[in-house]
């Protein structure tokens, strides 16, 4: 099989939500990034994250999740699979939910990104966050940031979703503790409440 680089894979899939489950055998590590020519290295980009401007140098193959976590210290965005299967890394990009593990940082140039750290305003939690605590959404909590951001994207575009619409909107966020119904209760309890940040 011809090696596929993360960049070419993501570019071919044409979207941040890489839906295809390529299942090669285990001889290769998670992904194979080809060596980049010198002129492609160290590109400076501008990211707006949670309302703050950042200028930073990134390599072309770095994912948005990687940059958020390792270079901006925003570790609330979790990486559960690093291949667009689990949704733990979901962030908002221009108001829409996105798997940040499957989106290159360079593509985010000039776009507005919101992460879980941007949900609360000072000590004032977003109504979704309050409902997540009250309805016991997080068990282990590893998927929670992603569930929150998908729910936020849903309520931004549809403030009063039906149960079916909410389930559909959260379908890309796996919770192996399987607290799906708690998360759903929390989202439905929040719908119609609270403003739309992010």
């Amino acid at each position, binding site marked *: 099989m011809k090696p596929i680089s993360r960049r070419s894979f993501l570019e071919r899939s044409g979207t941040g939500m890489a839906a295809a*489950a390529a*299942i090669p*055998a*285990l*001889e290769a*590590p*998670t*992904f*194979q*990034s080809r*060596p980049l020519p010198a002129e492609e290295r160290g590109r400076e980009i501008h990211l707006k994250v949670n309302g703050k401007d950042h200028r930073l140098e990134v390599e072309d*193959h770095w994912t948005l999740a990687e940059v958020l*976590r*390792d270079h901006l210290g*925003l*570790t*609330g*965005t*979790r*990486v559960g*699979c*690093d*291949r667009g*299967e*689990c949704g*733990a890394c979901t962030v908002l990009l221009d108001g829409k939910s996105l798997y940040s593990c499957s989106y290159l940082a360079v593509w985010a140039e000039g776009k507005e990104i919101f*992460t*879980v*750290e941007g*949900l609360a305003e000072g000590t004032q*939690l977003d109504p979704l*966050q309050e409902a*997540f*605590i*009250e309805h*016991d*959404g*997080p*068990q*282990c*909590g*590893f998927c*929670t*940031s992603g569930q*929150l951001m998908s729910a936020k994207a849903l309520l931004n575009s549809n403030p009063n979703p039906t149960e079916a619409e909410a*389930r*559909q909107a*959260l*379908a890309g*966020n*796996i*919770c*192996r*503790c*399987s*607290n*799906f*119904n*708690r998360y*759903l209760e929390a989202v439905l309890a929040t719908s119609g409440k609270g403003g739309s940040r992010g």
Partner: protein
Amino acid sequence: MVEELKTVGHSTPRIDGLQRVTGRATYSADVQLPNMLYARVLRSPHPHARILGIDVARALAAPGVKAILTHENCRLVWSSGDRVNKRYLFNNPVRFVGDAVAALAATNRHLAEEALKLIQVEYETLDFVLDAEEALQPGAVEIHPGGNLSPIISFRSTEPGKREPSTYVRGDLEKGFAASDFVFEDRYVSKHVNNAQMEPRVALAHWEGDKLTVWTPTQGIANCHRDIARDLNLALEKVRVVCQYMGGGFGNKNQCQDTDLMAAQLAKETGRPVKLELSRKEDFVCVHGRWPTSQNYKVGVLKDGTLQAIQMRGYSGMGPYRKSGGGISGVEYFRCPNVKTEIYPAYTNMAVSANFRGPPYPQGVFGIASILDHIAHELKIDPVDFYLKNVTRKFRDSIPYTSSGLLECIRQGAKLFEWKKRWHPAGSQQGPIKTGIGLAAGGFGASVGRSSAVLRLDSEGRLWLHVGVTDIGTGAKTTMALIAAEAMGIDMDKVRVISGDTDRTPYSVGESGSRTTSYTGYAIVEAAKDLKQQLAASGPPQGDEVLIAEATPSPRLEGKVRYSFAVHFVEVEVDTELGGVRVLKYLAVHDSGRIINPLTATSQVQGGVIQGLGMALHEELLYDENTGIPLNPGYYGARVMTHVDVPNVEVHFVETEDAYGPFGAKAVGEPPIVPVVGAVANAVFNAIGKRIKELPITRDKIIGAVS
């Protein structure tokens, strides 16, 4: 019913909920240290092969690479990776696709991944075997010297290491069959499914002088601490394990993982902190999942449905390394004078199999609940009546339970579920879409035992609770705080929980086997007694004073057995044309003694049920029989449940009074997954009138059964 308490028993949001919803909870992968290296692992592409040579020269010369470990320069034994044979960190021969061949540390993760490709390995491939029963046939390739029947590993066994099936006998089987009016025989098969916890394995190791600190996601910092110290030949005080938040495990993070040792060794060789991250695929194939089984039953009954004899011969595929018991349990939920179970745990060249929630039960209950449901059907006995007649009254018909709400769970459940109203004979509905109902019962040991707690009361009235729990998602930190608040008669907001760090907390039993509440929670109750005595004697602390109490009780059950019980009722809809199964209604009725926190306990039960539905209907790690390569590691491939798949799950607790544990609390976390697969399989049978005897119950099997 249990008597009402002030704090315990009231639904309380998790004390660390704020950290979890703001992203501030620090999981192991979130910790970054200055000058840190990243490590990656090269893994075997073959299910069984001898390594003839490894050439690391090109990889060592690659940019950023600082150290490489292979079986040639690292002979560390990972003792919790195999409890029978020596499992090295890097083995030769390699015994499954994914067995570690080399680990490498480099200045960033991309350079590490690039450099892995430069390691040259020459393999001589060997024959391999994937199926447990095939592995035990004469002529099968030997995975370890001495054959593929894995020895008995129970530490309680007087003859550990003996190669014989794990056997239990009571009464006289032949007499039992002779006395029976009918004898039924059948075979059931369950598959390897992965724990698939959201947080992949990671380890960050850092040496300061001769002291090692490891940040790692573990279900038991004390186990992990002990294992790392033993395997690296270090004194316990030279090792610190930290796990402030962890993203689930369901049994596969209970011991030290090989990644902990690899990171420690690479950090030692390079003199820099090393973070080793596993990919999701590695986590699916190289850690462990639930063992696959085949189960052959022979059951004798009287005409009225009274059980006379149960025989079960089962096979468990353990993969090539032995981490766990490999049991097939469920027969013990039924009273029966003559029983023999015989289980053959076998080495195979599949992924390693070990603990996953309720370890030996969900697959065992699938088998026994299926054949008993079949018997009730043949004898035209309502399954609820069959259960009421036959379920256990005493453990193995001889040892009394400390408490049992099992019969009450069946009665209340049948009523709440409106069983009689929903019941119809199997396969009696017309049309392509059919509904059916089923039930199954189960339980899990709610043992008691040694654990510790330290309480520290300051002059502000704050109670600092030091407990070595890690909170794998059960809500253990909150449960511990509730118990402490109740025991001290103070408000929850005065309690501060210090956990997840072996340098700051005393021993706690691992968060496995549903033990934390019963063990560590009870230690808190005991420590609180001491603290209250000190308070009475010397009054509240003033200024810089603190009062400190510690307890390490080792309670015993004195000739009794302590169990939690669960009875589940489910209604499904089966599309006989397209093969789909949809859950219409699910009721889980549990006796877990007193419920400390109804909010989190209900979440636990709902979660366990939904995991069980995944096992029943979706999940299986598939292998290519020709190459021994796993085909579908990962969430998509495993088809784990998602938001759009899950039904509403009703949860009902029958709170029996129990004289042991903190305020009579029994096991909550393990039992919920136990009856699920059996109940669903029985409901599918009730719908279509055909029994699916092999998991998972997928469309192809439904269509095959009805056509």
